[in-house]
């Protein structure tokens, strides 16, 4: 009971300041890779606890897209655009604020990272972490980036790793990002005995609403007892997430499965991909950054223990 209470408190606190990105620290530098070849990271870093939310993306649009020369607004994202060119404003549809933002291309995510890197406000979206000029979505991040789209190893470690010496499985990697080698369950909101995730399950979806073939997602962090070892939420399910891995020279990697797909997509072995320009109704992102000075090394998982 105590665990539930603390976890719920952590989650509700996060949602209360939704436009601020919350971070967790991914420690244990120098960890070995998984048998898939991914996951080894030689340094500490931080990764956002939740997928970037609709509200956070709307803040971004309101900062940089009054004219929207890069066509960052996409009508399907639960964000309404009002006003005329030069004075566009972006309003989140009621009840969608804390849900993860969808229809994000890798290029969109790069621009969001540039904006964050450049201090938000009217910060540049075209340079900083990534040089967008080529529009191929393949440029690497700048060496001293303050924030970036996680590398595939960073994303993978944050999702699946727990050192064997700290209670993790043999080899240190879970199959699912809920600290489990067993498939998570798709449960209704407010019900989470642990190892839960939002993936496609027709019977449960009928209960929560949303017909067959629809894309309905839960607010970020809706399963407070199903975080990864480092305290991230929803790296399995809810939305597919871009990472900076390059696939077949022209594409970027996507991992984690989504609320539109079956549970096996949440496995560490599943590595999807798409062209960086593509926007999908079930694909979003999260960010990474260096560990700031004097940050206590406490993860959500450790809090709930």
């Amino acid at each position, binding site marked *: 009971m105590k665990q539930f209470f603390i976890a719920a408190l952590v989650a509700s606190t996060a949602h209360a300041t939704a436009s601020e990105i919350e971070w967790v620290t991914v420690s244990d530098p120098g960890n070995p890779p998984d048998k898939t070849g991914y996951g080894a990271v030689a340094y500490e870093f931080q990764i956002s606890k939740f997928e970037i939310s609709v509200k956070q993306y709307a803040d971004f649009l309101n900062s940089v897209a009054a004219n929207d020369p890069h066509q960052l607004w996409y009508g399907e994202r639960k964000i309404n655009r009002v006003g005329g060119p030069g004075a566009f404003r972006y309003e989140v549809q009621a009840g969608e604020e804390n849900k993860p933002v969808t229809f994000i291309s890798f290029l969109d995510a790069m621009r969001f990272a540039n904006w964050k890197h450049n201090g938000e406000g009217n910060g540049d979206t075209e340079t900083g972490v990534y040089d967008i000029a080529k529009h191929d979505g393949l440029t690497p991040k700048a060496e001293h980036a303050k924030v970036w789209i996680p590398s595939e190893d960073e994303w993978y470690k944050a999702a699946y790793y727990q050192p064997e010496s700290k209670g993790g499985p043999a080899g240190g990697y879970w199959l699912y990002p809920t600290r489990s080698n067993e498939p998570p369950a798709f449960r209704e909101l407010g019900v989470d005995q642990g190892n839960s995730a939002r993936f496609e399950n027709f019977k449960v979806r009928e209960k929560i609403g949303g017909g067959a*073939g629809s894309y309905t997602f839960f607010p970020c962090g809706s399963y407070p007892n199903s975080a990864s070892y480092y305290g991230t939420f929803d790296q399995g399910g809810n939305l597919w997430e871009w990472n900076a891995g390059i696939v077949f020279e022209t594409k970027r990697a996507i991992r984690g499965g989504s609320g539109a*797909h079956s549970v096996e997509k949440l496995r560490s072995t599943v590595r999807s991909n798409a062209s960086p320009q593509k926007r999908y109704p079930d694909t979003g992102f999260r960010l990474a950054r260096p560990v700031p000075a004097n940050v206590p090394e406490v993860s959500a998982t450790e809090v709930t223990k």
Partner: protein
Amino acid sequence: MKIALSLLTLLSGSAAASSVELVKKLEPMFEKHCVNCHDAEEKKGGLDLSSLTWAPDDTENLQQWIKVFDKVHQGEMPPKKRDQPVPDLKATFVATLKHELHRVSIEKQTAQGRVVYRRLNRNEYVHTIQDLLGIDTALHELLPEDTTAGGFDNIGAALNVSQVHMERYLQAAELALNEATVTTPRPETTRIRTDYEETWHDWNAPGFQNGTWTHSPEGFLGIRWNGHNGPHGELGAWKPQLPDAHYRFRIRAKAMIDKVGPNAAAADKTRPDRAILLKMALTDWPRTGLTFGNTYAEMSATEFREFEYVARVPAGKTLWLSPYRTVPEKPDERAMVGGICAVIEWVDIEGPLFEQWPPLGHQRLYGDLPMQPANPKTPTRDLRVVSSQPEADAKGLLTGFLPRCFRRPVSDAEVEEYVELFKQQLQLGKPFDQALRVAYKMALCSPDFLFLHETVGALDQYALANRLSYSLWSSAPDEALTALAAQKKLTDPAVLRAETERLLSSPKARRFTEGLLGSWLNLRDIEFTQPDTKLYPEFEQYLQQSMVSETELFFEDLLKNNLSARNIVHSDFSFLNERLAEHYGIFGVKGDTLRKVALPADSHRGGFITQGAVLKVSANGTTTSPVVRGAYVLDRILGTPPDLPPKNVPAIEPDIRGATTIREQLEKHRSQPVCAGCHAKLDPPGFALENFDVTGRWRQNYRAIPESAKDKVVTIPGSDIRHYTKGPLVDAAYNLSDGRTFKNVDEFKQLLLANPEQLATCVTEKLLTYLTGATPQFADREVIEAIVAKSKEHDFGIRTILHEVIQSRCFTHK
């Protein structure tokens, strides 16, 4: 007396003296043994000899007389139960009529030739234009289907030319010239690696994504079986960089049985380590679910394997990959489709591929003339061939092109006609390349291109080269053959023989196999019927392709090794892959490659007549008919086509409910005297093949559609296929019209093998028909008999027969 009068009447005139002699010789036989049944009152078999005049210039009349001759010569007439003519009487009749029929036929051949001035058929047209311009554009669909004669689609007398033909020839020539003409610098050949992940995201429909696709334990995307034509295998996230060019796809894939997906219940019956066929094809994008250029390869369930698929990819098409079926391993085990997946690790795509640049066709059309962009602002597209001396260049190019196009030397005057045409276009303001293309287009639509030019008598060197080339390659002579014609060496029998060997050794000789068997065995119609999915649910495209390949490889082996014509009825080998072997109940053949396999003694297989493709084209999609199959065997295997059925006699409709066997129905039918005569010949070969169903599968019992829920539906161990009930037992026993009996197809084949001359004669007739573009005429009979006699020295070897046909006067003369 009535007969004699009519003969006398018709023979009076120029041949009056000999006609009197003819009448005297034929009259006794007619009077004594024929007119009782074949007069105006009885008219048995529809033949009234009293009104049959002698008018051999009339084709129908001539055929009637040939029929009379054959019936008497072969001993069918007078009927066995009637008084038989004394030997001298019959001999005189046969010799007299034979002499007269031969005389008439040879005179006609001498005066007109035996082959009608004929155009290229659709296949020949397409191959010729493709070879000429170095393209492989699909032109078949543009042209009307050819009419056939005697089952063959290259018979001059049947190949008409209509207004529609001319319109289509113009369209086809335009398209072919467009395809051959380069308008860009050489496109870069690239190699990319991709997979189905992006395509899968692009589907944008969760229900479909989950039902049709899965991920393997290794994390790679697995394509589920979703109906043989259900849309699911399209690589939508790729499109050809340059449409209508060749691309090489390398695919790394593995088989997987998916017990989670929509077919999980069926998959439960399947071991997880089953090999599965991978279907590789092209398909439409956006998706339609239709595929073409299908090929199949076997995926392992235990390791990833690499497969290669090379195809010309038109605009709007993309790659299709899907699982097709499991590969059975045990007797009585059938293919499964439930739960099968093709796990795709990656797809490498290399292309566009070019053998040379500019391509062959462009070089033939424009030589080395320079190219310039039509618009300087777009230097890499809309390039046009230009000339600083248009008339001279056009003349030079046409002088080179027209002999290739017309397949013979072309005079300066002929070239000048096309140069004039070019100049007119130039004067009308057309740029050099477009004006030249008008001249080329006219050449491709001229009779010089569209027709084979042969003059009465012995063929000239170029006509002979064309006949040989169109026989074996369905296309124009190559440079070597043309050179021999130019040197006037081709009429030398040894040279002709050597060239025959050379052409047969070329990959283009596959067109001979396909063209010949398409007509002879009617394999052209393999797609004409689709086996009923309730009665024959196991039938599928891969099996059908394997069947056709079996028959083609089998024929090529007979030809390559000069094996006996006996093999068309029975052989101790065939060409099988695992799928086809399983269909035949033969186990131990592994993999998807067809290879020569020794047939088990009890397999009931061997020879054309027990091959799946032949058994399929001789049946409809639901049932077999001994009548249809009997007619097929009589015509195409024994060379004795049956008479057409009498009018006003309804066809027999087999009872697919299984209540009445076809034997019972036919016995009732044969009780009618008007039917009995023909059916005595038709039914035996048909019944001999009754143990083979419409898919060529061996059956002990007929299959029937269940009529009620109480009917027991057949379940086959290890299979998810069961839609039919077990019908009555098959009874294949019968007797030939001469009284010899057989119990099954094995005994029937032995009876046919007793007369190898007949089989060799049939092979000779079919080859003669295909190679010359004309059905055998009466005067050809002596040629055919000589060829068969010659081939007997080589056990009726097929290659011997082919060479003898090509060396014969029928081939070397118009």
